[in-house]
Every structure is written in C-alpha cells, then in structure tokens.
C-alpha cells in the first residue's frame, strides 16, 4: 500500500530525514515511533505531498506521490498533529467543509458526515461549535474530518497529544476499529510507545531522521536483548546518582527521567537489590519501584541511550 524508499529531506544545511525506507502492506497498522524532533512529522508531510523530498521516492498503491499528487491525496486520509478545525464552526459545519475539499457534494456529503460523526461517537454534539468542545472531542472531530472520503490509507500524526486518558482510549479504540473492522491501512506516529504497542503489528523506530529499528513488535523488542526496565522513584534524584547506578554490574544504561532513575537491565531479579543498596547508601529515600518487561521504550533506550520522551 505504502512504499517509502531512501527518503531524504534537507532544510538548508539541516538533514531532517536521512535515507528512510519502509513499506506498509494493505490492511496493516504500522507504527512510526520516535521522540519529538526525530523526523516523524517531516516524513508524514512528505508522504501526504505537503513537502517535496530532497531525495527518494514515495508510492501509494504504486502511484508516485511526486508525479500524481492529487490522485494519491484522494486515496489518503491525514490526521494532522494540530487540531486543524475552525473553532467558530460547529462540528457538522467543519465536516461539511472538509468533505467538499475532497470533492463530496449534496446527499453523499451529508451521508459521509453522518457516518464520520458516528465513527467518532459525536453525533449528539454535531451542532455545537468546536470552540465549546474538550480537547479530546476536538481530536475526535479532527480524525472524523480525515475519514469523510473513506480513504484506503489513514495516516495519523500523533493524534492523542495533550488529551485526557479517557479521550485517548476512545481514540485508540476508534483507530483499532478502523483498522480491524473496516480494513483501513493505518500509519500511526507517536512518541507514546504504549499506543504503538497496542495498535500496531509492525513498527519503525526513528531517531535523528534515521530508521534505527524496523520489524514486527516481537522482532523489535528482541533488539533490547530481552532486558527489562527498572524505574526507581527516588526523593531528590540527580545525574550523579543515575551515573552511579549505571555503573553497577548488570545495568546496561541508567538515566534520570521524570524524577526517577530509569535503568535498562539484563535481569531485573539480579539487579534490583544492588540498585536499592546503591541509592539508599547515598542517604536518599526510595519512594517506589516499577519493573517493566521489554518494550519499545527499552528498545529505544537500548539503541540510543535516551528515553523516548527526551
């Protein structure tokens, strides 16, 4: 369905995307994971024809994006990272306008708007102005606007940024349904690894414009070497403490993140006790411990030495 080959994007001297290649099959949900500024949105912008690649090729259903941009745009639905809606228009008015931008008119347009509102479960609020909506509801209409023309390929650029957990779950369920029940091919970018793990069968991890891992979830997880992540919440932690923990045997990497020391370890059972001893030995109080099984976060940590949210 989607093929990206040797994609490069340079802005003046800065190379935002560096030789990216991946493909997405029909009906698949593919996750593009990476921290902020990794090049995800630039890649998406090139796929949807908003930016011209410096080098490389993108095809959708075998159609070259650069040569037949309009044809490709008709096949794709894009959910932008921004809530690209008119706040003073109602949800229905917004959808009617965006439907017209995809060439829909008359009865068909109205039917598609009804359908999209139903998918995002906002039929009852359709006459309310967007400015009166909560962040989560706006995000749902943002998605609905990209479904009106029943695209074969749905590209979602961080669609859950800045919303409450309940709305986030609602959006994830919607995406799951679009992919699973309606057979829509989905490319989902996020820096929330749990979302990508929940939705996608295959994943690509991008960092500094380069694809550093690509494969099925289990394949990519294995890249972390089967290691676990220990998250140690400590009162007043600092970099020196993180460095001291990182130097302990069995710990591959450790860093300070969100007031906790996050360590990638080979075997959690063997490493936890020395870690606790090292921390309490400095006089600092341990507030809590979490052990996570291998996941995309630990893969990213393993591959880059940094956390995804950095």
């Amino acid at each position, binding site marked *: 369905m989607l093929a990206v080959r040797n994609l490069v994007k340079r802005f003046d001297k800065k190379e935002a995307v560096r030789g990216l290649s991946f493909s997405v099959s029909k009906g698949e949900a593919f996750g593009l994971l990476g921290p902020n500024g990794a090049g995800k949105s630039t890649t998406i912008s090139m796929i*949807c*024809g*908003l930016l011209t690649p410096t080098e490389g090729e993108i095809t959708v259903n075998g159609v070259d994006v650069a040569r037949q941009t*309009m*044809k490709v*745009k*008709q096949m*794709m639905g*894009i959910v*932008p*990272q*921004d*809530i*690209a*809606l*008119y706040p*003073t*228009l109602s949800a229905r*008015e917004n959808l009617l*306008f*965006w439907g*017209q*931008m*995809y*060439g829909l*008119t008359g009865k068909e347009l109205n039917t598609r708007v009804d359908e999209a509102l139903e998918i995002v479960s906002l039929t009852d609020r359709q006459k309310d102005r967007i400015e009166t909506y909560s962040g989560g509801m706006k995000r749902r209409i943002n998605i609905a*606007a990209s479904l009106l023309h029943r695209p074969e390929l749905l590209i979602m650029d961080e669609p859950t940024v800045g919303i409450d957990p309940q709305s986030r779950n609602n959006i994830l369920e919607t995406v799951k349904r679009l992919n699973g029940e309606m057979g829509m091919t989905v490319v989902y970018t996020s820096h929330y690894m749990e979302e990508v793990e929940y939705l996608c069968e295959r994943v690509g991890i991008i960092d500094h414009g380069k694809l550093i891992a690509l494969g099925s979830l289990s394949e990519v997880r294995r890249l972390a070497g089967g290691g676990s992540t220990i998250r140690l919440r400590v009162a007043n932690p600092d970099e020196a403490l993180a460095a001291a923990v990182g130097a302990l045997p069995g710990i591959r990497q450790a860093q300070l993140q969100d007031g906790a020391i996050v360590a990638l370890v080979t075997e959690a059972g063997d490493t936890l006790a020395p870690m606790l001893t090292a921390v309490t030995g400095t006089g600092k109080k341990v507030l809590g411990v979490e052990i996570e099984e291998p996941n995309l976060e630990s893969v990213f940590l393993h591959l880059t030495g940094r956390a995804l949210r950095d």
Partner: protein
Amino acid sequence: MRKVLAIATNGLVLMGRDRKALIMFLLMPMILIGILGVSLKDMMTQGKIEPFSVIVVNEDQAAQPALPPGAPPEVKVQLPTIHLGQVLIDEVLLSHEVQEIIRLEIASDLTAAKEQVQSGKAVAVIQVPATFSADVINSQPSQIKLYTDPGRPTQADIVRQITGAFTDQVTSGTVSAHLLGESDAQSRIELPVITQNQAGAKTVGGMQYYAAGMAVMFMLMSAITRSKAILQGREDGTLARMAISPTPQWIILTGQTLSSALLIGAQFTILLLGTTFIYGVDWGPWLPVLLIGYSFAIASSGIATGLAAIFRDPKAADGAVGLLGMVFGALSGSMFPLYIFPDSLMMVARLVPNYWALQGFLDQMAGLGLSYAWTPTLILCLTGVVVGAVGSVRLATR
C-alpha cells in the same frame, strides 16, 4: 470552481461569526461617519484649494488680420497684431483671480513640461499651438491642448474650465479678434466661476466626504484583517489541511482571494446602503459608484493576499491593522480633506489605492459622472490583480 466557492463561502461564514470584526468593520465606520460628518461639516463647505502649479508652453505666433476686400492698403498699418497665446498668459492666467489658485510657469520645452506633470510637480501643461492666433483670425478650427494629471482631477478640471472658457470666447466671436489686440482685452474675457471644492456641478458635504473616506479606510482595514485570517489558517493548520486534500494550491489561493473580495464588497454595500438610508448621503449615480466600490474591493483583496505574503504571522498582521489602516487612511484623505494636502503629499497619496477610490467617489458625489469612474476603476482593478498575483506566488512558494 465548486471548491473555490466552498473556500470563499467558508471565509465569509467565518468572518460573519466574528462579532468583534463585525463591530469593527461595520458599526465603527458608521459611527465615525456620523461624528466626523457632522462636526467637520463647516470645514468642508468653506474649504479652499491650495495653489497648484500649471505650465504654459506658448508656441503661438502673432498674426495680423487680413485686409477686408476692397480696403485701401494703408489700413493694414492700423490693424493690430494679434497674439492670443500671450493674451491667455497675460490677461487670463496671470490675472489676480486665477493667480490665487494657480502658480504659473512658462516653459518652451513641451516634453520637459509633460514630465513635470508625470512626476506630480505640476497639475497641467497648457500647450498653445503655433497657429492658434492665425487660425482664430481666419476662423479655422484650433485648439489649446491640455495635459493633466489624472490623479488630481479637481485641479485639472479648474484648468480645463479656464482654458475652455478662453477658447470658447475667442473662437465664438464673443470677444472680437481685433479687440483682443487692445489693452483692455481682459475686461472683455469672462473667466469661468472657479469652484474650489470640486470640479463638478454639486458641492460635496462633510457627511458625504466622510462616508466615502471612512468606507475606504475601513475597507482597507478589512483587507489587512483578511491577511490575518489567511495567516491564521497557516498557523492553526487549516491551510495545511486544505493543502493535503486533493485541492490544487491555485484553487486555495483563488478561493481565499475571492473570499476577501466578497467580504470587502459586502462591507462596501452595507456601508453604502447604511450611509444612504441612515445619514441620507448622496453618493452620486449608482453604476459608477458601484464600479469604483467593487474595484476597490478587488484591490483590497489583492492587498490582503499580498500582505499575507509579507507578514510572518497573524500577530504581525493584527498589529498592522490599526497602523497601516490609519496611515493609508490619512494619506489618502480619509481623515483630512484631500484639497488641503500640499503637492508633495498629494504625490505620495497617489501611490495609495485608497486615494483613487476616495477621489473616484468624490468625483461621483460632485456629479462628474461615469466618465470619471474609469480611471480609478482601472487603477484599482490592476492593483488588485498585480498585488494579488505577486502575493499568491510568494505565498505558494513560502
């Protein structure tokens, strides 16, 4: 075409939902027109045109009337030499009455004189042809030629009235040719009544002046606000969303420009009707007034697109609404009557599209009619198309 209309309609709906903008661009001008029109009424009716420069290129050669058939040859000696070009200068243009409003310059180089008009240093060149006196004596058709500044129609019309009256009188026999050789010729040439506020038949009152002035000023302010709306779309992602739909960029830009034109045109229509029915303003004949008004809407829509290409973000455009609107408004005569402007400022004023719109409206209010609407209409439409096209290209490549 359907998408162009959808984008244009959407822009109108969005503006219609913006109460602040509606108050600013419909209610504010109506209030200001009322206040300024009433308070500055006297100033308008007692207005005085500042003296302006006119150049005369007198190529006329003195001529002597032919002897009547059968007249003895010695009579010829008694016949005076007639030099009508010199009479026009000495007795008409240098008369006390005309000197109050015209600064006369005498030149011999016609090309250089025309350049003075083009550069705005003079309002008109009066060219008296070499055979003017001879032609008049021999009852042959002859004409004094005028080259005037289209940007200052009021002053140009005064010059036209003066030269026209002179030519009419010397060619129609009101003043007989032989008398023109005499020293009291001036007393026999009646000068036209020079209207100081406008060249037309009607007087433009304060309420009329400020109805046109404020309408023009607020229409341009709307254009700047539209540029903000275009930039807002860029910032909030709606423009990008349009761009990722199967809608070519030229359709998006055309839709947005059409939206601006419709919006500003609607604003003009409302202000035109509002001032006509609430304040009783007589704008003049509807056809030329609408022509000028909608041409200015086109010019403003082009300016909106052009400004969107210049400003970095909506905040910058927002800041410019007041500043640019006021500066352009003041420069074009929306705040202070055009006729009190010195020549140098008038030159600058002509670079501002508001000036052409305002001057066009004033000409219609003065009763000058459709023929006076073409120049502003053409200039305004051209401004809109050129500025809009340049802005569109820049926006598309930004």
